[in-house]
């Protein structure tokens, strides 16, 4: 199906738009001299009955998925959730050190691990309990699952980059170290204040 360059531009502008556009905006973005209105109506006709439709609402035009097919769309409540920082770190530690107990994760992270964090990882299907460590208290130990490998595109855990690889890739320092040196600076300063208080 061949279209005029003008009609093609209008179609592309509507497709790439961040939101519904007025006729004037379409005119400006497509940089056309002629009126875009005939193109808009022709496009709306063309898309009628397809999987996509071009609609006008209150003077603004936009493409949308055909209304009768909206059941394929995501429901609002399924909004994908981004894994929290703590959860990503915990997952990484389990992947690198498995099987590990919660106490071991905490000692590697240097921060406590909330129970909810492990629950989230288990709910996502990436982490599973893997028995108990035969030490006093018999703590539960955790390991990653097959789903974990497939989700992260790994064939085996040994494919994870090692410390040297991380260092070479530039993943072993930046921001955090700077933050830390600031923190230890702050600690030093506090010590000094305390010492002076003792004088």
């Amino acid at each position, binding site marked *: 199906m061949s279209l005029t360059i003008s009609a093609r531009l209008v179609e*592309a502008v509507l*497709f*790439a*738009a*961040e*939101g519904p556009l007025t006729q004037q905006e379409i005119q400006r973005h497509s940089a056309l001299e002629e009126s875009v209105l005939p193109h808009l109506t022709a496009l709306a006709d063309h898309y009628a009955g397809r999987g996509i439709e071009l609609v006008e609402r209150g003077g603004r035009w936009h*493409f*949308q*998925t055909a209304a009768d097919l909206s*059941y*394929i*769309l*995501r*429901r609002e409540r*399924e909004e*994908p*959730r*981004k*894994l929290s*920082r703590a*959860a*990503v*770190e915990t*997952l*990484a*530690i389990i*992947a*690198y050190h498995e099987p590990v107990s919660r106490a071991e994760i905490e000692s*590697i*992270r*240097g921060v406590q691990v909330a129970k909810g964090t492990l629950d*989230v990882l288990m*709910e*996502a*299907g990436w982490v599973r309990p893997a028995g108990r460590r035969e030490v006093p208290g018999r703590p539960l130990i955790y390991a990653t699952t097959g*789903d974990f490998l497939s*989700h*992260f*595109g*790994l064939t085996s855990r040994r494919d*994870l*980059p090692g*410390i040297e690889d*991380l260092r070479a*890739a530039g*993943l*072993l*320092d930046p921001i*955090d*170290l700077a933050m*830390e040196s600031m923190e230890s600076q702050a600690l030093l300063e506090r010590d000094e204040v305390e010492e002076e208080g003792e*004088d």
Partner: protein
Amino acid sequence: MSGEASTDIRSPEQLDVDTLLGDADWAEPIRRAPGEAILTVQTESWEGPLDLLLSLARTQKVDLREISILALVEQYLRFIEDAVELRLELAADYLVMAAWLAYLKSGLLLPKEAQPDPSPEELALRLHLRLQRLEAMREAGARLMGRDRIGRDVFVRPEPEGLHRPRSIVWQAGLFDLIQAYGQVKARTAPRMHIVHRRPVMTLDEAIERVSRLIGVRLDWADLRSFLPDHADPQLRRSALASSFVAALELARQGRVEIRQEAIFAPLYLKAPEARA
């Protein structure tokens, strides 16, 4: 496909890698600093000796296949000499390359029968192949960057509705997030070397020596603080105070000084023992 159409337009011969990468600096290694008579050599313009060699090779303005390795070696050595004369900081690997090239040059100039093994021709050929490979990748990179890229030349829907998704991918995280997180955990908890800056201190021995010397010339009770050095900076003063206090205790234990204090936290007074006075 559209991508192919655009690569057809730019044949490799027409490619100007420098302009495509928008980084004209590297073709122009030596520049006159504005308003100054001296030359400045920007070694940061290159990423290592091979990069420098390649940009020197380009100045020969011939196909890389035809390039004279001997001429290239001479250019490099001259460049390094100039840089040394100008007392520029040269990274060690530039000098290592210079030494190696000087060796290669002498080999290339030697009569054939005196040549060591591996032959200089072979070494020159290897260098040549390395430069070709780097050049090829640089050009490939430029052509890659010049393609119709999403977000610059072609566009996808900015805010699609999104599809109904199976439960397992409700949580979002990628491999990069994972390894980055591990790197940060490691960086945060790695043992680190701490260097303690040397602080001005008065040692206990110095303090004992000083207090026992001064106590002999004081006739009456004297505040411990009057035994401290007069013009010391505050840090040394604190150290001296602590050391002198311990020194006073030690001297009192030995019976060489008497200590008096009116109340807790009140000033400490020292005096030579009565018997010796």
